């Protein structure tokens, strides 16, 4: 048995055999004096197969995720039909009389490189599509399997170096027991995907896992980050029990997902969702969310090739607010910069993007971005329970400045006689240690706080959470983070303000009793985590939670904190 430790990225336990996700390299050797018409015939046959494959993917994605997601594949089909591309392949073939693979590769590279040279992010991205299409035809010509998952025909644990969105779109979800990924952190693509699907995952497990062979037995512990290769019988039976317990708790939670979360001593605790678009909004309602604690607005900015207009934003916000009826929806203003870039803004490169011009700091520099968003939010808030939240606030002056711009927008809308909310609740994210330390002063300026534990932890511990080398240090269970959380909650309550949390920690089963004990008023999390979070809240009393919180604040490190709660409360012990 071999034991490895990575980052727990998605709850649950997988016990099964390994499926290695490996991309086979495309190798082309050029040969001369070929029969041009025979080579061309091979090309036409491969083209036909490629069209069938892509049409199939297009239909599949359209049915599963909708037209918008499928569009990239209809664009690829158009590339396969492109007369210029075909001519250019033919020209190379006629001129060089080489093998079709080499001719195609040359033609594809010509087009892709021409696109890349243009000063246009959209076209540069199309170069990728051209190569993707080209590689597909080359794989067909060379007899390489269409996708690395072609041989995946029994439910397995997917083991990979790293996965991209296009890798995952085609994997049959019923064939995935769990993920074990060598690279990446808790916010990597696979981690987010796995949580969305409710599939256990460990990421950042290290390059060593790539030595594991297909078919070997593996256990993936998505709650503590352990991976066992060829586990002993004891381990297997231990984890089989855990899996049973987890599945049972999940089942109970799901059956009560739409009931409120009321503690043993009768206190109702608000459980809401983190969402990023209209589809998420619907999923959140289905999962039992009582509103939205964090509406990320970046999606509107990331999907287009230019800034979204006020009107486009208004329509999207309104569509989301409408899903939730009277429930509150907290809209967070644009949080771009740091690790999130917008290609069309061409923002200057910074040496330290996480400590640079991001989020509210960027918005202050760019009223042409900030004001249309605030105006759209104010309009969408009319007659609805929409609140506005500013990210990355470090000082009191910043809140005052943000508030002044908001008032300016309100006055403009009033003068233009555009209907909008005259009064909205204003809150800030507490994600910078300075804001947590000054929370007693900041609380006087706002209606609520929402603690962003991901950033708060990485800034407090000076450890990049996306860097697998230090991700363990950046744990939100670290006592210094928990002490800051307590400080923030106490300061807000003193001013009669409420405190929510929209960081990953709020949806962590082990963290929930602690946060409840610290007095957190609102728990906001990814929709799939909601049913279980409610069930955990139902299982404890506020008094008991308080005792737990007091004790863990005296502990030394995140491991101690987690084991203490796990040992004490069987419901979170999975």
């Amino acid at each position, binding site marked *: 048995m071999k034991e490895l430790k990575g980052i727990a990225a998605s709850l649950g336990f997988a016990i099964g055999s390994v499926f290695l996700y490996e991309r086979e390299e495309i190798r082309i050797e050029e040969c001369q004096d070929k029969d041009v018409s025979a080579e061309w015939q091979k090309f036409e046959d491969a083209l036909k197969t490629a069209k069938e494959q892509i049409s199939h993917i297009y239909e599949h994605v359209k049915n599963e995720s909708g037209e918008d997601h499928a569009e990239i594949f209809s664009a690829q089909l158009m590339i396969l*039909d492109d007369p*210029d591309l075909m001519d250019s392949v033919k020209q190379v073939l006629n001129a060089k009389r080489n093998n079709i693979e080499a001719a195609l590769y040359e033609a594809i590279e010509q087009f892709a490189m021409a696109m890349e040279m243009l000063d246009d992010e959209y076209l540069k991205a199309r170069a990728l599509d051209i190569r993707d299409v080209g590689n597909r035809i080359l794989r067909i010509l060379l007899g390489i399997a269409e996708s690395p998952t072609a041989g995946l025909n029994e439910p397995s644990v997917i083991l990979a170096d790293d996965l991209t969105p296009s890798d995952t779109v085609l994997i049959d979800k019923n064939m995935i027991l769990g993920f074990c990924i060598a690279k990446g952190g808790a916010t990597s693509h696979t981690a987010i995907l796995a949580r969305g699907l409710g599939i256990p995952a460990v990421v950042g497990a290290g390059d060593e896992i790539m030595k594991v062979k297909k078919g070997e037995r593996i256990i993936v512990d998505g709650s503590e980050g352990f991976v066992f290769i060829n586990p002993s019988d004891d381990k297997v039976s231990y984890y089989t029990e855990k899996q049973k317990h987890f599945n049972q708790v999940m089942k109970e939670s799901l059956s009560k997902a739409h009931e409120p979360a009321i503690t043993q001593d009768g206190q109702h605790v608000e459980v809401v969702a983190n969402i990023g678009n209209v589809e998420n909004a619907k999923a959140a309602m289905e999962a039992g969310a009582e509103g939205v604690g964090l509406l990320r607005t970046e999606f509107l900015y990331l999907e287009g090739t230019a800034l979204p207009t006020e009107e486009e934003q208004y329509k999207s916000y309104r569509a989301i607010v409408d899903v939730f009826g009277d429930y509150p929806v907290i809209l967070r203003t644009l949080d771009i910069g740091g690790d999130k870039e917008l290609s069309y803004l061409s923002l200057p490169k910074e040496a330290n993007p996480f400590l640079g011009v991001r989020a509210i700091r960027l918005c202050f520099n760019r009223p042409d971005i900030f004001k249309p968003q605030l105006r759209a939010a104010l309009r969408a808030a009319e007659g609805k329970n929409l609140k506005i939240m500013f990210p990355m606030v470090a000082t009191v002056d910043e809140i005052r400045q943000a508030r002044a711009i908001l008032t300016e927008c309100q006055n403009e809308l009033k003068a233009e006689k555009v209907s909008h909310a005259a009064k909205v609740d204003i809150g800030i994210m507490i994600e910078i240690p300075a804001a947590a330390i000054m929370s007693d002063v900041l609380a006087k300026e706002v209606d609520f706080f929402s603690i962003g534990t991901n950033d708060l932890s990485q800034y407090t511990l000076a450890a990049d959470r996306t860097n697998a080398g230090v991700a363990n240090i950046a744990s939100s269970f670290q006592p210094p983070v928990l002490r800051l959380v307590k400080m923030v909650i106490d300061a807000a309550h003193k001013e009669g303000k409420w405190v929510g949390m929209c960081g990953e920690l709020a949806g962590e089963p082990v963290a929930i009793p602690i946060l409840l004990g610290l007095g957190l008023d609102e728990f906001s999390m990814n929709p799939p985590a909601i049913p279980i979070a409610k069930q955990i809240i139902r299982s404890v009393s506020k008094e008991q939670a308080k005792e737990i919180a007091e004790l863990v604040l005296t502990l030394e490190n995140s491991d101690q904190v987690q084991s203490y709660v796990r040992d004490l409360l069987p419901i979170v012990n999975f």
Partner: protein
Amino acid sequence: MPEKKLTITHPLGLHARPASIFVRAAAKFKCNITITHGARTSSAKSILGVLSLGVQKDSEVILKTEGEDADVALQSLEELIKEDFGDAK
């Protein structure tokens, strides 16, 4: 040989969806169709060619058609451009 000078008014220019709609429409005709932007000309039936012209909003293009359905092709592509490719966003 019929030709026409037209202004692209769609906010995205001849990019993304507008470009695909345009190329798909052009591909339905038998005649040869070219589109010229500045000094560069491409077949209107080639998505890669049309995209690489890099036509932005409010720029002018010249459409030329040649062959049996040249007139009706020019007319229908002109309408498509004037209607912002059917989605007045």
